[in-house]
């Protein structure tokens, strides 16, 4: 069930619109249900060849020798492509916006830095023949020591993974190995705090797993250009990346896409287009390079893992006085987009709360795993997980209700954020109030009266004394850091009755109040 609360912020909106706000059918829905929507792989071209790549079995190794003699004689093989055949065999995605150094080859030449890194591409008449040729390629590797843990990678003497960044960290502002946030004075904040809570959080890597794998079909066009059908999430981003790698004017490339079988960030990296176009250039035939599911799962870029350390100083009344972060982004063997995510993460700190003292160090670190890339919310998703778990522990520490604890610290219009910009157009408080009402989660009336608006904001309610001695031992199974403490809080005075248990689930959701508008919902027809 989805409902619109039109009564909230009504005076900031003109709701007198004709098309905006209507539940209009999707323009692409008919194509979807009739299976006539055209994805890149639905283009059938005469005499199309198939491209497959040889991938490294090692996570870190020097390439001593590549023997293609047997593979070249394999039936159906039209062309074998090596790194030397790639005009500009070194790139970094964000070079298009002048961010970072070229650090990743299209086809590995002297060294492989992650298991599954492409080394050689085979273009053949059929997929089977391409697979057979791959099996006949002989590569002589010299395995090198590997690093898979971000903290290990930072240690002096750790193996150098990506020679472009010899310290295993991305370089910010040409001088630093991390992005800084400095706001107020955290040490003074910690000194004034009643409790200090320092915790460690770990986000997992995540595979995008779109139902359509990455791929592209490139073909020589009638006018000396190349037409490229692609699953990219960013048409010109991919086009310009290919123009750079293949060293051709961008108008030699005609990219067609736009209808994509899910992406979630996994179709930005332009991993297939350069090779399918190069294959078409070298054979004069249409070439398809579609990533297999196992390849996509094991060797295509995931959302990167992040390890996050948070240290908070908090006052007995629930105000967070200081918050310190150390965020370690696992970028894998190459930069791709993790360098950008780290800055986005820094900008997001300390979360949607007003904290007078904030300190952060955000690192983009190289390890011997598949390079990480963009995914739905990256740079924010993991740190929000860490912050919100931390908020729950802090509320517990001072004996406050988690909703009310959020409201005490929530940012509002006019507050100064850690990146030194004034908060505007905020609505965190209203979201908490509405969610609490919806979930029948009782909060005190003074919290219900709060507002994000600068004028209407009123006083920040101070927390009631703890309902019980705060639990100062940490229950986490995880390898947690210390919780050390100032003198215990005063004995509890008037005790606030704990909120009642929520009603049985059988009860229907509350009828929409305040003239809320409900839309026929995906949850409408639920039958059990």
């Amino acid at each position, binding site marked *: *069930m*989805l*409902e619109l609360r039109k009564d909230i912020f009504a005076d*900031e*909106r003109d709701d007198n*619109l004709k098309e*905006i*706000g*209507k539940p*209009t059918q999707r*323009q*692409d829905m008919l194509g979807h249900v009739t299976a006539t929507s055209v994805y890149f792989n639905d283009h059938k071209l005469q005499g199309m060849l198939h491209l497959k790549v040889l991938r490294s079995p090692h996570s870190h190794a020097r390439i001593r020798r590549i023997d293609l003699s047997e593979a070249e004689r394999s039936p159906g093989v039209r062309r074998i492509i090596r790194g030397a055949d790639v005009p500009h065999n070194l790139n970094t995605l964000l070079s298009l916006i002048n961010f970072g150094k070229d650090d990743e080859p299209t086809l590995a030449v002297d060294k492989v830095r992650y298991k599954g890194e492409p080394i050689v591409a085979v273009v053949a008449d059929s997929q089977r023949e391409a697979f057979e040729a791959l099996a006949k390629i002989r590569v002589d590797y010299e395995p090198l020591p590997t690093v*898979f843990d971000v903290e290990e990678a930072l240690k002096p003497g750790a193996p150098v993974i990506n020679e472009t960044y010899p310290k295993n960290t991305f370089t910010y502002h040409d001088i630093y190995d991390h992005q800084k946030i400095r*706001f107020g004075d955290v040490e003074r904040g910690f000194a004034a705090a009643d409790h200090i809570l320092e915790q460690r*959080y*770990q986000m*997992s890597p*995540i*595979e995008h797993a779109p139902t359509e794998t990455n791929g592209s079909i490139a073909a020589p066009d009638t006018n000396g250009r190349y037409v490229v059908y692609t699953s990219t*999430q*960013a*048409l*010109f981003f991919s086009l310009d990346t290919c123009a750079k790698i293949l060293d051709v004017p961008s108008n030699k490339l*005609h*990219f067609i*896409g*736009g209808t*994509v079988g899910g992406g979630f960030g996994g179709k930005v990296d332009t991993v297939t287009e350069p090779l399918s176009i190069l294959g078409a250039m070298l054979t004069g035939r249409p070439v398809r390079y579609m990533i297999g599911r*196992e390849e996509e799962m094991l060797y295509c870029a995931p959302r990167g893992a992040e390890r996050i350390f948070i240290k908070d100083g908090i006052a007995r009344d629930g105000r967070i006085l200081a918050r310190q972060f150390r965020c370690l982004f696992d970028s894998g063997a190459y930069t791709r987009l993790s360098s950008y995510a780290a800055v*986005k993460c820094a*900008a997001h700190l300390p979360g949607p709360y007003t904290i007078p003292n904030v300190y952060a160090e955000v690192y983009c670190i190289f390890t011997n795993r598949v390079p990480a890339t963009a995914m*739905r919310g990256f740079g*924010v*998703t993991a740190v929000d*997980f860490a*912050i919100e*778990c931390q908020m*729950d522990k802090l509320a517990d520490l001072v004996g406050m209700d988690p*909703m009310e604890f959020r409201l005490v610290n*929530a940012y509002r219009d006019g507050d100064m954020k850690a990146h*030194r*910009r004034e908060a*505007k*157009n*905020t*609505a*965190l408080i209203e*979201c908490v109030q509405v*969610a*609490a009402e919806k*979930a029948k*989660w009782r909060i005190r009336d003074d919290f219900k009266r709060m507002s994000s608006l600068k004028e209407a904001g009123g006083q920040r309610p101070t927390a009631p004394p703890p309902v019980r001695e705060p639990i100062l031992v940490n*229950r*986490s199974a*995880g390898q*947690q850091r210390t919780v050390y403490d100032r003198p215990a809080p005063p004995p509890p005075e008037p005790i606030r009755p704990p909120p009642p248990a*929520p009603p049985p*689930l059988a009860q229907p959701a509350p009828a929409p109040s305040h003239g809320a508008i409900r*839309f026929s919902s*995906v949850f409408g027809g639920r039958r059990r």
Partner: protein
Amino acid sequence: MAKLRGRGMSSMNYPIGMNLGGDPSQALVHSNPSGKFTVSLSSIDLGQGMKSVTRQICAETLGVPVEDVYVDTADSDTGPHCMGSFASRGTHRVGNAVMAAAREARGVMMEAAAEELEVNVADLETDGRGNIHVKGAPHRSISTKDVAIAAQFRQGRTISGRGIFLVPLSDVDPETGEMSPATCYAHACLVAEVEVDDETGEVAMVRMDSAYELGRALNPRLVEQQLVGGAWMGISHALYETPEPYYPDPSHGPRDFDEYLMPGPGDICPHDITVLERPAPDGPFGAKGPGEMCANPVMPAIANAIFNAVGVRMDELPITPEKVLRAIKAQGGARPQARR
């Protein structure tokens, strides 16, 4: 054996568009001789509804019915530059570009209509049903079709428009991190209820209640698609997904949809959503973007609900039955917290 229930919550905000800006998008809008419009983009529809949202934005801005507009995307020969479909930028950036292009096209359309009706442009308005008439005098009216015919064959005007939207790139101070990361933020608060099996560590979703503030729900059904599907992905990230089950040890990576765990249709739970709209000053009709943030509040809300149910803190994702069971054993059994 006990199955213990608990509730947890989280609240957060999410920046709209590429961090620091500098991510332009362009749009072209033009009319055919019958007054039907085409929006040309190079933006990608991954399923999020790019074609549909920009279509509604264009129709509203032109003042014509949505049926009179189709969106063509994405062809690099016909669609002007767009940075791409990521960073929750589609609705905000591309939407603004389409709005600008549609405004320019509308301007020409109104001038052509004024010439046909022999009135001042300022006196004209659209009725949203395909007609343009004099304010207060609906009978002095002309259809967009007749305007387009006149513009094309008599007046020699192109009813078309170009639009671009760019948030200028912000610097980042190396020492303090001072920067302008985003021009607007979406907001959310979510409550998750879970049931934890204290003998196996298995966590089952019971229900979710949420509030999302998105500036403006341009199309509530599309917003609902994003929020419901995104929350499913949030459950998936929280409890199931990982390409490296033993991270940082890279072994045993899943190779297929059997080994890569995601909630099945039998694992989902009811989710009640409320949408708030505080228009972004620079959003198309105030819209922000729901596409990315929708998964985020679910993960910590589930972790906090697990603590409420059995008293263990889950600080590593994904929260597998093994991690929950190890934690429960480490603390010598489940410790249910105060029922919320």
